[in-house]
Each structure stands twice: as C-alpha cells, then as structure tokens.
C-alpha cells in the first residue's frame, strides 16, 4: 500500500470522498474553536486587544508558506513522475495560498497600524510576503494562459522551481535591504521571548484549524480539477469519434 496509489485519479476521488466530511468537520471545529478561544483571551500588556489578531495572522502566514512548499513538491512529482493528480493539486492549491498570503498581509498591516503608527511598513517579513503574493499571482496567471494542460503543468512546474529559489533569495535580500521592525519569531524557544501559555494554546488550535481547512480546500479543489480534466477528455473523445 503505497502513497503512489493515490496518483490514480479514481482512487484519489474515492478516498477523498470518504475522508472529506471528517476533514471539513474537524477543520470547522478547530478554526472556530481556536479563533473564539483566542478572542476570549485577556488583553496583552503592551498591545491591548490587538494581540487577538495573532490567531489569524500567524496561522495564515504559516499556511501561505506551507502551501507554496506543497506546490513545489507537487511540481517536482509532476516533472519527475508525470502523475496528473500531482500537477492538478499544485494548480488547486495556488489560489488558497494566494488568499492566505493576502490575509497575512492584510492582518499584518491592520495590526501594524496602532502598533507601529503606520498602515504599511517595508518590514522584511511583510515585504517577503508581498513578494510571495506576486509569485502566487504569476503562477496562477501562467496556468490560466497556456491552453494545453500538459504544457501548462510543465511550464508552471518550472516556474514554481525557479520561483522557489528566488523567493528564498528575496527573503535574504530583503533582510539585507531593511533590518525591519517586526518582532522576533513569536514562537521561538528563547526563554525571554516565549509567548505565554494563555496565548500559545489558542494559537496552536488556530494553526491546526487553518491547516485542516487548507487541506480540505486543496482536496476539494483537486477533485474539481480532476472532474474538469475528465470532462475535457470525454469531450475530446466525442469530437474525434
């Protein structure tokens, strides 16, 4: 029983069909639970009630990056093993990643306003997320522009690979460019820096919720792509017959 069996579209559809209700249910519970729990936490000494935004901002930012990594892996699997489901999954994941990046940017900017006194600041992390957003948009645009599905998969795969290297490169270039006012990693293990448990636990739940939500959405969108591909194949066969 190997994971490659799920490269078979039919098996993928059958397995996800069973798993989805559970996935969606648990995603809803964790998301709502985490966010509501976070909403009920006490105010932070320095940041007041705005600290509650962390329960949206951090999970969204994490997923924005994780989704791109997933797209990179899926693109590699397509390039090396030519499994269509993998290419379709990458295509499916991209809009989700773009929205997560947007949420991270928006919540970051809104949070920044009272904290830093400015709606936008070219802080390294925010800037890197803006660049990531540009990469997502380019990727999505390329998929939409190329007509032949296999060529589109190949070209977007190469773009994802090159884009990943440059996204990483940009991260360090941007750090060089502006030392920035973003606080250090809020979940670091350095003793002084650690977030208190009161905030950490709802945050973990929110992060889990966002993760499950992302997984559910990717699976649903991949199923959509598989259906569209199957329909196109059937129609093409009809026309030839």
């Amino acid at each position, binding site marked *: 029983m190997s994971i490659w069996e799920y490269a078979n579209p039919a098996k993928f559809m059958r397995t996800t069909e069973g798993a989805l209700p559970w996935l969606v249910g648990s995603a809803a519970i964790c998301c709502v639970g985490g966010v509501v729990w976070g909403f009920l936490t006490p105010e932070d000494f320095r940041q007041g009630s705005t600290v509650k935004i962390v329960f949206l901002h951090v999970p969204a930012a994490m997923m924005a990056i994780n989704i791109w990594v997933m797209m990179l892996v899926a693109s590699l699997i397509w390039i090396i093993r030519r499994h269509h489901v993998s290419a379709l999954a990458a295509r499916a994941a991209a809009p989700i990643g773009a929205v997560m990046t947007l949420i991270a940017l928006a919540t970051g900017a809104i949070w920044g306003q009272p904290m830093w006194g400015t709606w936008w600041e070219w802080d390294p992390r925010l800037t890197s997320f803006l660049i990531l957003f540009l990469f997502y948009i380019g990727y999505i645009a*390329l998929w939409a*522009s190329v007509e032949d599905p296999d060529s589109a998969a190949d070209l977007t795969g*190469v773009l994802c690979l090159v884009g990943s290297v440059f996204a990483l490169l940009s991260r360090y*270039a941007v750090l*060089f460019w502006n030392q920035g006012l973003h606080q250090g990693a809020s979940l670091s293990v350095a003793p002084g820096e650690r977030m208190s448990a009161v905030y950490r636990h709802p945050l973990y739940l929110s992060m889990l919720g966002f993760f499950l939500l992302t997984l559910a959405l990717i699976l649903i969108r991949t199923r959509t792509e598989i259906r569209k591909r199957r329909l196109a194949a059937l129609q093409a066969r009809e026309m030839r017959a």
Partner: protein
Amino acid sequence: MIALLIRDLRLATRAGGGFGLGVAFFLILSALVPFGVGPDRATLAPVAPGILWVGALLACLLSLDRIFALDHEDGSLDLLATAPLPLEGAVAIKALAHWITTGLPLVLAAPIFGLLLHLPMQAVPALVLSLALGTPALSMLGAFGAAITVGLRRGGLLLSLLVLPLYIPTLIFGAEITRRGVEGQAIGTPLVFLAGITLAVLALIPLAAAAALRVNLR
C-alpha cells in the same frame, strides 16, 4: 555559437530591430521622473540610484519578448532546437545578444542619466559597476521569462508579471551599491552578493529556459 550571436546582433541592429529602444526609454524615464516629483536637487538626488536602477530594469523588460518571439514565428526556433548546438547554449547566446544590445548601452549611458537626476558624481563608478554586474542577470532571467511565454498571445504582460519579481534581489543589491556610492561607503558586501546572484543565474537559468522552450516547441 559565434555565428548565432552575430546573426542575432545583426538582426537587432537592423532597422526595426529595436536597438537603442532601451536607451531611449531610459532617457524618457529620466525626463519624466523630475516632472513627477519636482526638479529640486534635494528631492531627486536621494532617489536617483533607485530610479536609475528601476529604469534599467524596465528598459530591459521592453525588448525581452523579441528574444524568442521572432524566431518562433518563422520557425527558426525549431531549427535551433534540433541543431547540434545544445539548446541551453542557444539560450545563453540569445541572452548575451540581448545584453549587448540592451544592457550594455544602458551601462554606458547611465552616467548621463545620472546627471539628469542629480546623482552625485562620486556615485557614478558604483552605478556603472553595479549595472555592469547586474544587467547580465536581467537579460538571462528575461530570457527565461521569454522562453515560458513564447507563443502566447499578449504574453508581454504576463512576461512582466513573471520576470519582475525575479529581478528583485538584483535590484535590491544594485541600488544599494549605488546608494553606498553616493554616501562614499564601502560597496564590497552588496557587490559580492550581486556578482554571486548574476553568476548563479548565468550558470543555472539557461537550463530552466531551455526546458521551457522544449515544452513550448512540442
């Protein structure tokens, strides 16, 4: 390979080849910016490094689709792909031709435009050096973008969208070098980074561009 280079250079410098377009655009931009932000030396001088670099970027972008589009249209790209010369080599030559006709003129003309934007004289060596080191990367990354979008109708806009984010590291270090030139600070660190990026791009991107071309020529 030399033959290909000479052919591309001759094509570019012929009438209608677009030679000089990049420099002309750069000139127009250098004239437009003061109209936009005001003519004061105090306003222009601080932003001159950035404007010059962004201008170079955009000027490069203008002629990118020419790298492969013409050959694709008349079928010579297919011939190149099946020729004994490896496609990666052909890509590198075409990027080189693009640099000679677009990047190099920019490097040479930049001091004059720096003058228009009140760039302090002591920054000119830094400006020219950073452009000389950075524009080859711009041409090669541009070739990658052109390879991906060759054959697409109205691929020009998509080309810009794909390529400009890739330009960001080169831009950051290039502009920083120029800015440090203004202040008279040491430019060693960003110079090394810029050179490193360009070398890595020149070595690795032809592979990606050739892969994209093969997809599009199927």
